[in-house]
């Protein structure tokens, strides 16, 4: 009957968008905005600086050790061999869409690579670099 789609459609739409509208949902743009505020820096974020940071090696690892020199490609955990989906949003649109996930991985991986947490400016530079990869 013709009224059925009109009846069901709102429920389907709500179900489909429920995941995207959780409290932790973010976008790359909103994250950059947040980090810009936290960094309180006057100069804009830099993809070039982000790229340098991505390749920086303080002890054994750089970001590229697992995410590869081209973050549009799939990566691999250097110890366990576990496959890692691409990091660049152009290759993997799910990246940088969940705030808790972003903060968790920055906390862990910056501590492992840089032996300290990344600053908001560094996070902004890194994401700016990743967004520059089309």
């Amino acid at each position: 009957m013709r009224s059925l789609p009109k009846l069901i459609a709102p429920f389907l739409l709500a179900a489909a968008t429920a995941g995207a509208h959780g409290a932790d949902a973010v976008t790359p743009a909103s994250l950059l905005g947040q980090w810009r505020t936290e960094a309180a820096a006057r100069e804009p974020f830099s993809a070039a600086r982000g790229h340098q940071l991505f390749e920086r090696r303080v002890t054994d690892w750089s970001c590229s050790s697992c995410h590869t020199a081209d973050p549009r490609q799939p990566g691999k955990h250097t110890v366990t061999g576990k496959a890692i989906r691409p990091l660049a949003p152009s290759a993997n649109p799910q990246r940088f869409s969940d705030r808790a996930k972003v903060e968790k991985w920055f906390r862990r991986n910056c501590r492992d690579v840089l032996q300290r947490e990344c600053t908001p400016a560094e996070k902004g530079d890194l994401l700016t670099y990743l967004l520059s990869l089309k």
Partner: protein
Amino acid sequence: MIDPRPQSVRRRATLAASAVLLVAAFEVPAAPPAAEAYQSECGECHLAYPPRLLPRASWQTLMSGLDSHFGVDASLDADATRAISAWLEQSAGAARRDRHEEHEGREERRERATRELQPATGRPVLRITETPWFRHEHDEVSAATWKLASIGSPSNCGACHSDAARGRFDEDAIRIPKK
């Protein structure tokens, strides 16, 4: 334009109720949230190893040292750590099996010791691959096999155990690669 007549309103209400009942009928009972959290958090870098493969003391030690988890920062927020720790300790394997040891012969005692999760002496073992049980189960696998490119190390269960992701390690689902 939605038809406002009473019989049409009843029909639409019946349809809506039926849809809800259908969805409810096919809903699969969910795993406990902590079990799911363990799968998603601890399965991100390696297999989410079944909790029964280590004793409680091992899981306690692992979960209280996540910021240096075999050399890597695997830390979680406090709530997730608490919930997953509780579930792991509850689901852990028995360190030593209950046996009437006074009736055991020497041979039986040695056999049993090879199947324990916890070695007889020392601190809690943190690697499943170092439990007497694991070593016993894999005593026919050569050192060279572990180093094959498609396997890499004994902790890579899925390389040979096709059903490892579902926590099953049946003998008839094993396929050891050649390279």
